[in-house]
């Protein structure tokens, strides 16, 4: 692709996708999603939420029952339209890489480079192997590579024909956790360098938040919320999303007149006007709670029931008077309390009220 093409040539626009298998429950119920050109978006959801079905429809391996898929303004799936996968210019990086076992690394990468002369093919292959940090590995066979290396080759193979969009289907799943972070950031850097639009399907919230520019949380075949990682974590659309993308402390609250709600942890300022809502659920993150001395002003008192120490931080569980469920408090640095001790708890910052 030449550089003068406008940016939205690579925008992915998915609208109203529905799909059921046989007579069963629908897997997708009107899923919609827009990924701006050049962005890396994550589709995050529990297993069985329909994210893989969506990916296969976008790639062209499955036909949706209804709905459309547009890539750079071009309709690739829609009523009466189904562009076969080989003409979509969408690259895929499957789970565990799926390299062609009978082809060398270089020939794997060059597989999609058809219609270009041999010199150009060799140049492009070398360029991509360098991009993924595997220069000089061209003559190896796939089984001679580690899992992480295979995954990088799979990315190079997908990027080689300059696709408009790259789909990554839980590509880091098979890697052990020590390797995962490294491969993940390398993949992100390579995608940035090529400017390709990318869609990462995953069930790992940490991976989605730390890798993507944009995260779409999918629940039961619909997008529950699509936002930047920070907004998703700090302003989740509902308690389910809040709990899915991180630890959440949920407290019943009653609104009083001046933009605050009364809870078992004391008054909490609201992020938005309550819009006539009188009572609801207040959603806090464990790091919004602080341990204090028992006699601190504005703090409520409770008993420590458990301490889990992680090194970089620790989680302290406290039972508070007037609230049945113990609350989790994340603290950095040394842990000043032990199980059975009395402590004060207070809330920092604002929180949202959910019906």
């Amino acid at each position, binding site marked *: 692709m030449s550089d003068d093409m406008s940016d939205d040539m690579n925008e992915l626009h998915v609208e109203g996708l529905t799909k059921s298998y046989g007579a069963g429950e629908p897997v997708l119920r009107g899923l919609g999603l827009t990924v701006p050109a050049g962005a890396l978006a994550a589709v995050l959801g529990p297993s069985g939420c329909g994210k893989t079905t969506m990916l296969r429809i976008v790639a062209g391996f499955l036909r949706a029952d209804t709905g459309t898929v547009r890539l750079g303004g071009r309709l690739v799936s829609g009523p009466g339209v189904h562009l076969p*996968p080989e003409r979509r210019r969408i690259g895929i990086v499957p789970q565990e890489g799926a390299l062609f076992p009978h082809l060398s690394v270089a020939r794997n990468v060059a597989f999609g480079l*058809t219609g270009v002369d041999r010199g150009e093919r060799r140049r492009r292959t070398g360029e991509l192997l360098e991009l993924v940090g595997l220069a000089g590995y061209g003559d190896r066979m796939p089984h001679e590579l580690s899992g992480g290396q295979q995954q990088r080759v799979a990315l190079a193979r997908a990027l080689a024909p300059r696709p408009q969009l790259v789909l990554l289907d839980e590509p880091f799943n098979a890697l052990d956790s020590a390797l995962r972070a490294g491969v993940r950031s390398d993949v992100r850097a390579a995608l940035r360098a090529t400017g390709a639009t990318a869609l990462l399907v995953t069930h790992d919230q940490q991976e989605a938040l730390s890798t993507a520019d944009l995260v779409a949380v999918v629940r039961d075949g619909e997008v529950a919320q699509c936002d930047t990682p920070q907004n998703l974590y700090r302003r989740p659309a509902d308690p389910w999303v809040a709990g899915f993308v991180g630890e959440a402390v949920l407290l019943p609250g009653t609104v009083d007149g001046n933009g605050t709600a009364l809870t078992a942890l004391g008054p909490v300022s609201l992020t938005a006007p309550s819009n006539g809502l009188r009572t609801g659920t207040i959603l806090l993150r464990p790091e919004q709670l602080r341990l204090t001395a028992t006699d601190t002003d504005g703090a409520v008192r409770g008993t420590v029931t458990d301490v889990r120490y992680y090194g970089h931080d620790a989680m302290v569980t406290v039972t508070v008077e007037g609230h049945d469920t113990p609350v989790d408090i994340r603290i950095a640095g040394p842990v000043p309390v032990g199980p059975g001790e009395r402590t004060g708890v207070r809330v920092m910052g604002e929180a949202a009220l959910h019906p």
Partner: protein
Amino acid sequence: MLLVPACVAALFALLPLGYLAVRALERGPAYAWDIVSDERTRDLLARSLGLTAVVVTASLLLGVSLAWLTVRTALPGARAWAILATLPLAVPSYVTAFAWLSAAPGLAGFGGAALAMTLVSFPYVLLPVTAALRGLDPAQEEAARSLGHGSLRTFVRVTLPQLRPAAGGGALLVALYTLSDFGAVSLMRYDTFTRAIHTSYRASFDRTPAAALSVVLVVMTIALVAAEARTRGRAGHARTGKGTARPAVPVALGRWRTPALLWCAAVAAVAVVFPLAVLGYWLAVGNSATWDLGGLARTAWATLGVAAAGAGLTTLLALPVGVIAARHRGRGARLLEQAAYAGHALPGITVALALVFFAVRYAYPLYQQIPLLICAYAVLFLPVAVAATRAAVLQAPPVLDDVARSLGRRPWQVLREITVPLAAPGVAAGAALTFVVCMKELPATLLLRPTGMDTLATRLWTETGAGSFAAAAPYAAALILLAAVPSYLLGKHRSRTT
């Protein structure tokens, strides 16, 4: 698209079975029942089952003991003993029978038949039990020890129950092999169903007794196959996790070391060394009268020809079934695969008989002609080729198709560049294996070969039956040599792909 040829292949495999029943009932069910309920049939049943019981028991004893000794103990040379113990698998039962009979003609009868069948079939127990022992997590045994069990109680309460599915599956295979074997029992002149069917077919113009006895034999083998499939299903549940993280600590044999070594040596001597030595002896004492080189070459050439044709047709029929079995997991696909496996249950003699009846009635020009023999090979060995094809196609998982499509290939290009190159070596290996088993086939070849044509197997059988052991020996040697070449290539292919 593949469905039509796949259904043709499946029908092809089922046809003989149906026709056998039709033929048995041709003279009315009462007549057939008379034959089945005859005292002689009951006698045959007792003899067949008696032989099967003895062979299964002896195979379990040999198989389980050798598996445990070679996998879990500090037996010197464990690997070599394990390899040596699997060699009899490649030797046809009638070759082993020839070796023992020619050395000790007095063995003929029950004892000889049981000995020959045990020696060729105990690896069917040894192999699955070895695999199960390797797959056992030593942590389970350690847990049992930590809970206060001694090593013997641990073996009985933890290890043995987990070996049962593997040993049971192996035992059923041995039973199946024994029931359908013709070569060893006929040479040892011990009357079982297969030998009685052959005699009855040769001796009388009334073909109904042979057909009725065949139906009884087929019913027995089908019951065994069903039982085998059931234990296999349970064995799958018994396995947990992906193999073992660390190998078990070998059991020190202590003062049992010498008896254990003697036991392994005795089995190897009886199953491998002795038959080869006898063969060598007969080859050495043979003179120009018994060494008919021209005849040997002609026979070998004819054997290669029919075996190659058989392997070709079988592989061709297996391709669509194997592809569907590997790529689709629906009910229809399962049925199709199972139909193709019918040959697995059918003793060679019954398939041959069915094809003879069919040809005499509907296609007389084909009667005792090579095409009919080739068809029999295809029915009998379709399971071998289907299993190989299925495994080969699984080498090219569908996700590779997806990737290739996303990189701009059309479906037929995917087939050419990905699926075929990945599956071809496995399919070729399956064809080689089919070739070997066709070459060794005896009962169907005896019945269906054109008059005057011999294969190495039939010639060996005839000469041994006539007591001319020196004349039979070159055919046995040629058979072992010719079968060893594809087996060797196959072994190389396996070790490369795993």
